[in-house]
């Protein structure tokens, strides 16, 4: 147990460092730039209507005060962290002025979490299951086809696959909803209609994430298992007459699953990137769509808020995946 708490402590420290570095990077990128958020905000406000010069100057003063951009960088940085730690107050967004940017982010976050968690869980289990079987039963025709297919699809970026799905289900065979997270005509809340509608709308984005992600796990697991199969202990188990099912699942695949879990923690950040792009394609109201909308409106606050929350969320998710290790690896529990 001591080893496990040491492991958890180390991972926790790592998570803190990642959050700190990532959020600071996001802050510095936005604040070291020559572009002043007040100016960009003013220009986007004033293009929509005509104000008198005095009104614009007043607005500039108010906005400068609101964002505190006239203060030295260090003070802004300390302020930023203080407000972030006190519940994430980033100031009002421009996208939906005066709704706070954090409210927008919190509205979008559950949808991203829904997409990301379902697709990662399904992909990881299916990919490893089939990959493990393909590594063990190396002569199976069907599994070989799987291998060739995942080799072909695996390198294609998320965007292209999502886009092709969109074209196919939008124009060629329109059976599934291709936009939004739920139908407009259902009452949102915990009722059957709403949940069904959410599931229906999630099918396409989740499937396109699964299609891309599957190959990574399949090929990785196949390589791992086809090496483990040649180990002496597997040969011994086979000779000793251990049931085949038991050899495949408890002797071979369980051992191979440990590095795959480590790999999951490593690639979670990039899967997240894939998720937010997929969202954008299907107009899913998650963080990705919010990020793109915010960039297009020139909304400094929301862009920074989304990036900060994204970095934090991914770091926390990686930490959680790392905590799962003792489930698979009894060595971590025992020592």
């Amino acid at each position, binding site marked *: 147990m001591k080893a496990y708490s040491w492991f958890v402590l180390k991972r926790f420290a790592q998570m803190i460092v990642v959050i700190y570095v990532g959020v600071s990077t996001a802050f510095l990128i936005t604040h070291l730039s020559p572009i002043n958020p007040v100016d960009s905000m003013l220009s986007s406000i004033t293009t929509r209507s005509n104000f008198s010069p005095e009104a614009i100057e007043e607005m500039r003063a108010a906005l400068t005060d609101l964002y505190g951009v006239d203060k030295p960088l260090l003070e802004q940085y300390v302020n930023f962290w203080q407000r972030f730690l006190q519940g994430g107050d980033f100031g009002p967004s421009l996208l939906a002025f005066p709704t706070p940017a954090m409210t927008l982010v919190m509205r979008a976050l559950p949808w991203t979490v829904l997409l990301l968690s379902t697709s990662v869980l399904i992909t990881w289990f299916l990919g490893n299951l089939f990959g493990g079987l393909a590594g063990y039963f190396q002569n199976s025709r069907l599994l070989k086809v799987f291998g060739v297919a995942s080799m072909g699809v695996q390198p294609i970026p998320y*965007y292209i696959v999502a886009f092709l799905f969109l074209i196919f289900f939008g124009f060629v065979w329109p059976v599934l909803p291709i936009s939004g997270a739920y139908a407009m005509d259902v009452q949102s809340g915990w009722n059957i209609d709403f949940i069904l509608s959410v599931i229906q709308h999630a099918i396409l984005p989740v499937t396109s994430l699964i299609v891309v992600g599957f190959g990574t796990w399949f*090929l990785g697991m*196949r390589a791992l298992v086809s090496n483990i199969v040649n180990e002496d202990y597997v040969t011994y188990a086979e000779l000793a007459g251990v049931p085949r099912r038991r050899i495949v699942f408890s002797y071979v695949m369980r051992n191979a699953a440990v590095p795959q879990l480590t790999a999951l923690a490593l690639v*979670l950040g990039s899967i*997240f990137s894939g998720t937010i*792009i997929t969202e954008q394609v299907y107009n899913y109201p998650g963080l990705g769509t919010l990020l793109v909308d915010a960039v297009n409106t020139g909304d400094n606050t929301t862009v920074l808020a989304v*990036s900060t929350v994204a*970095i934090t969320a*991914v770091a926390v998710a990686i930490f959680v995946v790392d905590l799962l290790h003792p489930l698979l690896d009894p060595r971590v529990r025992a020592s």
Partner: protein
Amino acid sequence: MLAVVRDLIRYNKEFTIGAVLVAIIVGFSCLSFFSPVDPTLVYLVPPERPPSTEYWFGTNSRGQDLFWQATFAIRNTLAFGLLVAVLSRIISVTVGLVAGYIGGWVDRVLMSINDVVVALPIFPILVLVYFVLRADLTTLKLAIVMACFGWPFDARLIRSIAVGLRHREFTHHAVFAGMSARKIMFEEHLPYVMPIVLSTAMANMIWSIGLSVTLAVLGFTDLNIPSIGTMLYWANNHSAMVVGTWWWIAVPVVLVVVTFVGLYLLAVSLNEYIDPRSRLRRMGGAALVSATSTLVAEGGAAPVPTLGADVRGEPEGRP
């Protein structure tokens, strides 16, 4: 070198297919040097013509001949991928060799930086960079930013090899002969990691091209430079699917998919070539494999990179 390529083509189907696909793409992109048209000009040919003998890939709603447009697009996209690959290779080789050879606290510091960079979600950061720089985000700047995020996986791989090389006899000889650490790393150890550098470079190209296409499709790039991403952006912008100009979308998608699959197969087959165990398995005989794997383990010769990384090459995502 040539003999290696010949053997790979003869025994490795993936390598052959990958090499052919990449050769087709590179050849196609080279056609851009003979292009009769300037790819940035619009309304040169009748718009929205389907593929025909006159316009092989059809023309788009902006009055551009898609054939020549595509040659420029794939050339720029490939060049971008190559640029990022070279830049990030420089970082990953340096970090990997230094961490592996010097070890100690240098190793620990470099690897903790490595772990932090791995965990950061890159896409929001790239969008942030675009958001700040806007029109100033040139291809070179974008490549540098991406290179700063594209090295950690490969650095770790290179480090794992360099750690093994440090205890080899020739390293001791070099040290006793008075060779400087820098010389040992970059003259003695570098050749050993070169195959890994090559195969990860291809995986890295897939990653960076994928990201740049995604950024371009969302409009977060210089839209006047023809590339696969900007082609898709303009196609979306003119609602190509609704109008029915499917070839406008099909051309870049097919090109980019062929590029990715080709590069991926090359990377995978090179990885397999580097790992002697999987090479032996291909030649046949599980007994041989287990015999060599114990040999490798006991003799400590040519440390094999972690198995998971074997096929995956670069597990960074391809948005």
